[in-house]
């Protein structure tokens, strides 16, 4: 953090350079790029051109015919994805997207305007695949794929977090996430990838989760959290692992059982499931809901996602419940059934407590825990004491993917309104479908990229600061594991008074459990409101 410029230095009014963007050389600014993928991580998954290399090297050790490889890969994808073709052809450069990107707002770098980010790819598309581009060249906005262009791709397509905010504003629905995904696929073909994407991918492939946690370690972590819950509430609970014949398979992002503050959210989940006596199991094999394949390639996404249905089939469950995670839910909602379905061996999810049939998940057979919990609260199945969360004044950060690739907007808000007494929304241009990224999505939440993360997170942090000053908000809630890792340093940098939590952490605090002790502390072990004064008196 010390190396970072002061917050007020980070905020710059964007002034594009005088020369044409095609001529501006890419400057690899320290703090704004991610380390390349280690060879061993590419080997695990069988990606081409594994090697040790460095971004700052002149020679990136590309295969000799890299231009041909990318050209062929581009052609193949144009034939396979209508999205790519349409998005390459229809942009009129109206500029409506320009100031919608958090990375542009935070960095002022004009190539972070979604239109120009796409143009980096589009210019090569025009050169290689359009008549006008072939004849008119630069005049038609076409340019050859040179090494400098490729390096520019690497820099800027790893400065896009695939959040899709620009696509909400685009009059043609051009989705930069789709363009970035394609560009990253093309770069994968010649061995240009970042370690923060490929290591989780390799780990997830072999160990079942991003952090490479082995089965016994997962059990230890979960047991440890169960003990914490017992210390705080007096209620003993156990989390079934790899249990055959359970009704529900519960899949969470591994961040939730690995690191604070995700662990508190995890405690909330298992308290809820235990309190209701739900017959569920978790899996050490399918121990990851997240899927960094989304940030790497469609094929990898499929290879990693396959575990969830495979495990559901092996364990013989009826349906699947998923934890709070952003990109995980884009994969589950928009891709899983297509990639690895049909899930005809599962049943349409029915809540064992309320009897609600989740018709919206009738094909994929996987329900978001916020949908599940909102339904429970609506049917009065939970005893909640929201005053236990009175020490926090909460705001809610819509995670990009649940907002713009699902429309999961009201469910978390309904839960929040029932588990805490002080909930304040951020300004309307910064929430719901217009929500801003945390700055670390799509594999960019690594430390070497910290400055760019702080810049990218600026619009979000700015909105948090607004409600902090206006309503005294001190807790930023979210439903995404990457958020729970990325937002705390962002808050520390921009709005240090604000902490970060998941929705189910607040639910766990408010949940009145059978046979519980009086709660003196919340799940973080901090005194509950009112307790502090008592302590002083005592």
């Amino acid at each position, binding site marked *: 953090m010390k190396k970072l410029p002061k917050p007020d230095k980070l905020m710059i009014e964007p002034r594009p350079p*005088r020369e044409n963007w095609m001529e501006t050389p890419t400057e690899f600014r320290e703090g704004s790029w991610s380390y390349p993928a280690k060879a061993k991580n590419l080997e695990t998954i069988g990606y081409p051109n594994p090697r040790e290399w460095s971004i700052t090297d002149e020679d990136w050790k590309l295969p000799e015919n890299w231009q041909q490889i990318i050209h062929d890969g581009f052609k193949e994808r144009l034939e396979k994805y209508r999205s790519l073709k349409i998005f390459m052809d229809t942009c009129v450069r109206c500029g409506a997207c320009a100031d919608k990107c958090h990375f542009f707002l935070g960095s002022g770098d004009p190539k972070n305007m979604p239109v120009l980010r796409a143009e980096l790819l589009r210019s090569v598309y025009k050169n290689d695949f359009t008549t006008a581009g072939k004849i008119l060249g630069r005049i038609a906005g076409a340019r050859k794929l040179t090494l400098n262009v490729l390096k520019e791709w690497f820099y800027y397509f790893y400065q896009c977090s695939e959040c899709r905010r620009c696509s909400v504003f685009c009059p043609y629905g051009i989705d930069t996430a789709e363009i970035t995904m394609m560009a990253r696929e093309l770069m994968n073909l010649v061995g240009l990838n970042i370690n923060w994407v490929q290591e989780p991918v390799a780990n997830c492939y072999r160990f079942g989760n991003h952090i490479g946690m082995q089965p016994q370690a997962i059990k230890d972590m979960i047991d440890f959290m169960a003990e914490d819950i017992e210390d705080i509430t007096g209620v003993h609970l156990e989390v079934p692992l790899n249990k055959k014949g359970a009704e529900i398979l519960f899949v969470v992002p591994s961040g939730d059982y690995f690191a604070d503050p995700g662990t508190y959210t995890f405690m909330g989940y298992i308290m809820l499931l235990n309190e209701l006596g739900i017959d569920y199991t978790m899996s050490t094999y399918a121990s990851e809901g997240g899927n960094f394949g989304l940030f790497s390639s469609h094929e990898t996404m499929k290879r990693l996602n396959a575990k969830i249905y495979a495990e559901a089939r092996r364990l013989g469950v009826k349906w699947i419940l998923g934890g709070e995670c952003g990109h995980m839910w884009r994969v589950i909602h928009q891709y899983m059934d297509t990639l690895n379905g049909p899930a005809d061996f599962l049943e349409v999810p029915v809540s064992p407590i309320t009897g609600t049939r989740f018709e919206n998940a009738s094909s994929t057979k*996987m329900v978001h825990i916020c949908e599940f919990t909102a339904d429970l609260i609506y049917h009065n199945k939970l005893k909640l004491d929201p005053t236990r969360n009175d020490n926090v004044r909460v705001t809610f950060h819509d995670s990009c993917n649940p907002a713009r690739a699902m429309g999961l907007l009201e469910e978390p808000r309904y839960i929040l309104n029932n588990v805490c007494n002080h909930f304040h929304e951020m300004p309307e*241009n910064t929430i719901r479908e217009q929500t801003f990224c945390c700055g670390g999505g799509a594999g960019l939440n690594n430390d070497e990229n910290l400055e760019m993360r702080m810049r990218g997170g600026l619009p979000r942090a700015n909105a948090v600061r607004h409600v902090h000053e206006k309503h005294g908000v001190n807790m930023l809630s979210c439903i995404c594991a990457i958020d729970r890792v990325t937002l705390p340093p962002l808050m520390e940098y921009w709005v240090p008074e604000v902490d970060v939590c998941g929705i189910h952490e607040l639910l766990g605090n408010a949940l009145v459990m059978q046979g519980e002790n009086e709660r003196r502390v919340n799940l973080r072990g901090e005194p509950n409101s009112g307790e502090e004064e008592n302590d002083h008196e005592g």
Partner: protein
Amino acid sequence: MIRNILISVCFVLALCAIPWIGVSFGMYAVFGILIPYLAGSILLAGIIYRVISWAKAPVPFRIPTTGGQQKSLPWIKANNLENPTNTFGIIGRMLLEILLFRSLFRNSRAGLLDDKRITYTGSRWLWVFGLMFHYSFLIILLRHLHFFLQPIPVIVKLVTSLDGVFDILLPTIYLSDIAFLFCVTFLFLRRVVLPKIRYISLVSDYFALLLLATIAISGILMRNVFKVDLYSVKQLAVGLFSFSPGLYETIGVVFYIHLFCVCILAAYFPFSKLMHMAGIFLSPTRNLANTNRMKRHVNPWDYPVQTHSYEEYEDEFRDKMLSAGIPLDKEGE
């Protein structure tokens, strides 16, 4: 970037000069018959080719961008227009997008206050002028049916008389002409004046606007200043459309500049960004229903992939699982 503007100005000037010179050499057949037919064919064939090439590419995944509440629990109000789940919603969303530029209407401008606060203020100028531009273009096109159709359809007559409601000058100055020129000027100046937009603008962006402006100006000039022989124009147009073209040397060179630029626009259309008109209909983030978990979407080119099976996983960690008390499929030796 100034260079981009200059290049497109040169292009358009050259395009005006070509028919001028051509007609002065008496090449009426070339500019009145040959080029219009050629351009018309390119337009038709080009659009068909482009749309087919788009349509031929499959939609492997259902990837709508959702702009409102999903349909989930029955007591939560779903937003079927911004996050459609049925045909009705899709049609509604597409109509809003195509007829009213819904997404552009959302536009806001980010600004920075002195206390380093970012503000987002609604910015509808682009939407207003964009919408006005497209609708005046449509009205002008409809009005031009006057020249091609005999008898003139009632709707065309109605549009024309409404459009010329303020007929203070003779011949009438049409509202749509004024609006169109006004919008083209706005859209052009925007690309010249705003630094960000100037930075992203390519030659083709300026060229398209200048070409449209040239067409509009030459049209107004021939009608209101040079007063070309409209009766002959109509005969030429009807002749072209009934495939019995005639030569009309009396019409005047402004008309041929107008016609030539229209032909260039038509021939340029299928190969340019102007195809966004057709592209919006096929945009997968807009025209797909968010029924992702309700109905299975099939990827036509799906193929099997290598995965890491549970058996391989258990083989690697059997001992550790056993000692941690995690159930196994095969007990260890």
